[in-house]
């Protein structure tokens, strides 16, 4: 709406001198900024990463050949049991490893997570606007405790300890190995719980000349930090390889697990090179009662989208230019305060601040649910110049309040009835929820209409517009099979004809 206003004014700016134009532009920009909060809906709730049980969070910064990886170490269990083995391309130096504030994760999560926004209809009988907003942020963090001590023993197992550091509460070793049996044995002897099947992954990593970044917690040093929560570890290295090794983690669990990647680049979106990167469904109008259960809503939406795409894709949840000096709108609406130079520095974005050149910062949030069967390869990424913005956004529209007995008010109610019908359809298509119990949502609107109008309305039986929102959406087996069979038919037909042609010649 605001954009229309601005465009309208633009037509006569040609005749104005540059100075006036500049002021006019600033004025319009201010107007735009002011009104956008009113017109473009309010943020009500978000579906943050804590919703997903078996999940990990990673910050991935890529700048030329440099990669900075921050691992959240959101460990659910006794701290003394915490142990981590991460394949890395090079032997890290001590200055390449640091501990960062864990708040940077919750901040990036809050800022980029899928959002629920809320609009209000005007009363067509008495045009007036009433706004309200409601925030339901519950921050859940699993407390962890306890401690243990790691004893490093160098054995004649073909394992070389390339380096050994104590960083914060962590004892860190960089290992290289010549073969997986020795490495596995060494890790088990030193208290790392390595699954039986790990060797099928360790061997390829050893052969790929990867080193192993091995981490344990020193509980006495953790106590010095005044908290029993593990802090994220950040590592940086220069390498051609821009990837996340997920196969080692898969050896641990049979089912699927979730990973949320917060990626930062100078130019644009990060996308996966060896799996499809797909947008989650966005900008959908959903019923008002979802407000109380937005978390479960998004969880089910994600699960359904994951299944529909064939369980082998990476989802895009957010993509935005978040350069601190970037003039444009940062989000619509914002779910949390935008990241500031201090947070960027903490995340490893060392070019974001005004003192460090102040380049562009592009933020991509990827969400992948992976399992052994559908993800045979580690995730490989690339930085693209694609700076197109994207956010996962779901919209509630509150009905007009007050007396709606005037003629246009009655028309509005009828329209509202159909709209709610579509919202229910959408909800079912997105989440698969059983909405037959939600007839009251329609009925409460129908009851406000006089009987003669009410009787003409369709009951909720089957979706009005099936497929919208995607039962048979992108990548669904149905579509693929139809397409494949159609092509097969054409090919067979053509082959048949070709044969005839050859035979006749």
């Amino acid at each position, binding site marked *: 709406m605001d954009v229309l206003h601005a465009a309208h004014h633009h037509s006569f700016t040609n005749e104005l001198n540059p100075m006036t134009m500049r002021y006019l532009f600033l004025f319009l920009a201010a107007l735009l900024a002011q009104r956008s909060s009113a017109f473009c809906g309010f943020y009500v709730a978000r579906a943050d990463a804590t919703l997903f049980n078996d999940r990990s969070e990673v910050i991935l910064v890529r700048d030329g050949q440099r990669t900075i990886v921050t691992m959240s170490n959101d460990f659910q269990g006794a701290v003394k049991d915490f142990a981590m083995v991460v394949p890395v391309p090079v032997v890290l130096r001590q200055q390449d490893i640091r501990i960062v504030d864990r708040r940077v994760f919750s901040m990036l999560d809050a800022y980029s997570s899928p959002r629920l926004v809320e609009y209000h209809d005007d009363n067509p009988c008495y045009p007036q606007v009433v706004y309200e907003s409601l925030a339901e942020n519950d921050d859940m963090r699993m407390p962890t405790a306890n401690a243990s001590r790691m004893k490093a023993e160098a054995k004649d197992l073909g394992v070389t300890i390339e380096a050994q550091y104590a960083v914060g509460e962590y004892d860190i070793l960089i290992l290289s190995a010549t073969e997986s049996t020795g490495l596995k044995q060494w890790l088990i002897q030193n208290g790392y719980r390595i699954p039986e099947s790990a060797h099928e992954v360790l061997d390829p990593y050893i052969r790929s000349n990867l080193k192993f970044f091995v981490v344990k917690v020193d509980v006495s040093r953790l106590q010095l930090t005044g908290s029993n929560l593990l802090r994220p570890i950040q590592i940086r290295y220069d390498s051609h390889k821009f990837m996340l090794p997920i196969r080692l983690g898969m050896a641990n669990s049979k089912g699927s697990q979730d990973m949320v990647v917060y990626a930062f680049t100078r130019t644009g979106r990060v*996308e996966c090179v060896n799996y499809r990167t*797909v*947008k989650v469904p966005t900008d959908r109008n959903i019923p008002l009662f979802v407000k109380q259960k937005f978390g479960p809503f998004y969880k089910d939406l994600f699960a359904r989208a994951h299944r529909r795409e064939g369980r082998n894709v990476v989802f895009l949840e957010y993509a935005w230019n978040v350069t601190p000096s970037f003039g444009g709108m940062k989000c619509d609406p914002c779910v949390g305060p935008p990241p500031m130079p201090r947070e960027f520095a903490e995340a490893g974005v060392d070019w974001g601040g005004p003192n460090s050149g102040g380049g562009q910062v592009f933020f991509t949030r990827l969400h992948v649910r992976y399992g052994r069967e559908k993800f045979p*390869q580690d995730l490989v990424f690339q930085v*693209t110049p694609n700076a197109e913005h994207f956010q996962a956004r779901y919209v509630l529209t509150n009905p007009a309040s007050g007396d709606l007995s005037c003629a246009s008010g009655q028309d509005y109610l009828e329209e509202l009835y159909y709209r709610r019908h579509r919202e229910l359809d959408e909800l079912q298509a997105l989440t698969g929820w059983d909405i037959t119990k939600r007839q009251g949502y329609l009925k409460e609107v129908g009851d406000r209409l006089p009987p003669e109008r009410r009787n003409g309305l369709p009951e909720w039986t089957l979706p009005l517009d099936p497929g919208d929102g995607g039962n048979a959406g992108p990548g669904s087996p149905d579509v693929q099979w139809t397409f494949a069979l159609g092509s097969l038919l054409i*090919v067979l037909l053509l082959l048949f004809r070709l044969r005839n042609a050859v035979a006749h010649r």
Partner: protein
Amino acid sequence: MLFQRTIGPAIAFLQRDARHFQVLFLASFLLYGTMALGWDAEWPRYAILIGTVLSVQTLFIRWKRVPWSSLKSALVTGLGMSLLLKAGSPWTLALGAAVAISSKFLVRWDGKHIFNPGNLGIAAAVLLTGDAWVSPGQWGSGAMLVFLVGAAGGMVVLRVGRIDTSLAFLGTFALLEMVRTVLYLGWGMDVWLHRLTNGSLLLFTFFMITDPMTTPRSQAARIGWSVGVALLAFVLSWKFWINATPIWALLIFCALNPVLDHFRKGAVFQWTSSTPRTTTPLRTN
């Protein structure tokens, strides 16, 4: 009855020229990608690419007096680029498309153009502007893709007699990947399969490297050349971790074409064998 009146003539039309198949299949891939794979349906992007290739081709048709049927080749180039090339600005796309088509008329040696037009156009857009990119992951991987692209591509490639190129390339690449991924690194066969059934790789194998105008003329040279492309693509991807390596490998090997053709002569390819050969030395489609 219906078959005789509609489908029959349609197939006869398709069979008249291999490029008719190419247009049909490339267009269906584009539809499949946008409708079933959830690509951003960027119709303006496709319109710019296809519009530019057709306009530039028209300009050269008038200037160099080549047959109007060469517009089909330009359409194939435009569709192929639509499937692969992405860019932030429409100018980047227009530049890529213009470079692709002009190269056919301006970068020539011994009566034929040197570079695969779509390939050069993509390379030019990516290297010259920094605003363009290729998404090798956009198809995903899967047996379905092998079947789809393989069957469709096979039709075209068999007709233009370039199945040797496809098989030599894919076979070499598969073998090298097998040696590296499974035998040397010790990954399971599923990793190998996942790498090989990548849709972009298959599309390249059947629809890009097989361009009859920019492959060497003699079969022996062609097979050696395809093996070379596969080898270079393999080295680039494993040694330097470059993405979409077949595209870069093909670019380099196209530059070697004049040399290969010099040593191993072969017949110049003609798209439509039924029509009499034009006597003009300049066949440029």
